[in-house]
């Protein structure tokens, strides 16, 4: 456990009287594919929002690459290497597929507005790099033919994929996927599983995944954290999670646990 990339220590957040996440601890090791599961309202997305700087934890500390990220704005975290997708797709729906990717690459262009007015050599160079890299990314997901289409007009499954691509275009160290298979059918979920494994290998990114689809989580995650009512109830590899009585209780109710015991 030497190269811890993202660490959460005793992180809690309260909204008024509601404790959404309480005393959460996590160590994300570079290169791993971890899953975060839990019933609805368990606090998974709230946790994501804290890890990406949208919410500030009430107490506890989060550190990324050894540096605390308290008070760091989301755009700054993106520049440091945390990227994400959203539970309800948040593409730039009115813009082209290509522009969606190029906006994610905005942080890698450094020319000023004056240079944009005068079309400097640096601008030409950086725009060309951004375009080439965007097209390369689109090729991975076979979206290059749709580069000029409006993102909102893509079929649902492709919008999900485009959002993952957009997250990758920021050249992140950690990608957080918030329910990437939500609303997908069986075969789409299956090909998504392959894609996620493939991009991890290809880009060498660490992946943290929230998912409801148990098959997907159990199939590809090496380590799983289970959250219920804002508390971590179990952590370990998929086979351990499947047997844990607390997890079964959280998902199916306490009667189910007593039945399995009998």
């Amino acid at each position: 456990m030497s190269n811890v990339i993202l660490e959460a220590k005793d992180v809690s957040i309260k909204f008024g009287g509601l404790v959404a996440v309480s005393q959460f601890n996590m160590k994300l090791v570079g290169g791993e594919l971890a899953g975060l599961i839990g019933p609805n309202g368990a606090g998974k997305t709230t946790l994501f929002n804290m890890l990406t700087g949208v919410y500030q934890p009430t107490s506890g500390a989060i550190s990324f690459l050894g540096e605390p990220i308290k008070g760091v704005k989301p755009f700054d975290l993106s520049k440091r290497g945390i990227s994400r997708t959203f539970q309800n797709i948040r593409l730039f729906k009115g813009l082209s597929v290509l522009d969606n990717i190029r906006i994610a690459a905005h942080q890698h262009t450094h020319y000023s507005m004056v240079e944009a007015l005068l079309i400097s050599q640096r601008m030409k160079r950086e725009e060309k790099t951004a375009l080439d890299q965007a097209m390369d990314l689109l090729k991975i997901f076979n979206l290059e033919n749709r580069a000029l289409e409006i993102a909102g007009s893509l079929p649902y499954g492709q919008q999900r994929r485009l959002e993952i691509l957009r997250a990758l275009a920021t050249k992140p160290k950690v990608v957080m996927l918030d329910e990437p298979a939500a609303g997908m059918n069986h075969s789409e979920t299956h090909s998504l599983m392959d894609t996620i494994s493939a991009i991890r290998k290809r880009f060498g990114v660490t992946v943290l995944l929230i998912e409801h689809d148990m098959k997907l989580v159990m199939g590809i995650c090496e380590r799983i954290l289970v959250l219920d009512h804002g508390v971590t109830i179990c952590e370990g590899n998929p086979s351990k999670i499947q047997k844990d009585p607390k997890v079964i209780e959280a998902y199916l109710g306490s009667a189910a646990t007593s039945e399995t015991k009998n």
Partner: protein
Amino acid sequence: MVDFKRSILMPVLVILVCLGIDYVVPEIFNPYLQTLIAYSGINIILAVSLNLVNGFTGQFSIGHAGFMAAGAYMSAFLTMTFPHWAGPIVGLNFFFNTIAGGLLAAAAGFAVGLPSLRLKGDYLAIVTLGFGEIIRVVLLNIEAVGGARGMYGIHHSASIFWTGFWVFICCFTVTRLMNSTHGRAFLSVREDEIAAESMGVDTTKYKVRAFVISSFFAGVAGSIFAHYLCYLNPSSFAFMKSIDVVVMVVLGGMGSISGSFVAAIIITLLPEALRPLQEITTIDFRMVIYSLTLIVLMLTKPQGLFGELEISDLFRKYVKRHS
């Protein structure tokens, strides 16, 4: 090094064309039509610059007349107080005074933008509306710029050339910005602020930038207005002026520079074009027809005349269909 053809040759050519127009226009058109041309130019600058905020960045500002007033009064004040500070050439004085007016308006835009851009939609609209009114009322009470009497005898420095020159600079700036990574950042703020933020776009910075650039050109338009009309009065910059500009932006299409350009000309000329009608009917139906035209246009093309497209896109489409 910069792109010689597009960044040096093109502007120089356009400036020469403007000079040519400036020479030809007084020969062809009577002073009334000349004034209409100048007003069209002023409105184009206002509409295109407001489009940067309302159309591309997706913020709803209805205080454009306030920034215009700031620029108009600043430049007129400089012209009146220091007539020859930049040398004996009148045009050069006017040029620098216009920039000074634009800078004051930009500073005002920055001052309003920074605290109020945390607000969204209707709330931002109300803040900008309030700001526009504050500027007008403040000007109404400053004796040094004439107060309610207004400012008389400003030198007539704004010619068709200067109007054309600034129209070009304004359209040039906005077009170039929108074709760069900065333009895409503006668009991302409009499309989805939360997503833009998590993709590494500093949304607050870009909103303020849009506001500052837009206010600068509003100030420039104000300066041309002041030096063309040679008279300023705070009531010229009332709430209705801001609404006029918003109408131009919406009518042309939010997010279309060509759209704002065309709509600005239509809105300027339409009431004037309807003038002969008044002579026939002997009752003033002009504003009724003007309003009806707007209603019909909005019903038939709710996304504006050009939608989000530019003239070049339409041309490309046309060529594609006919080849």
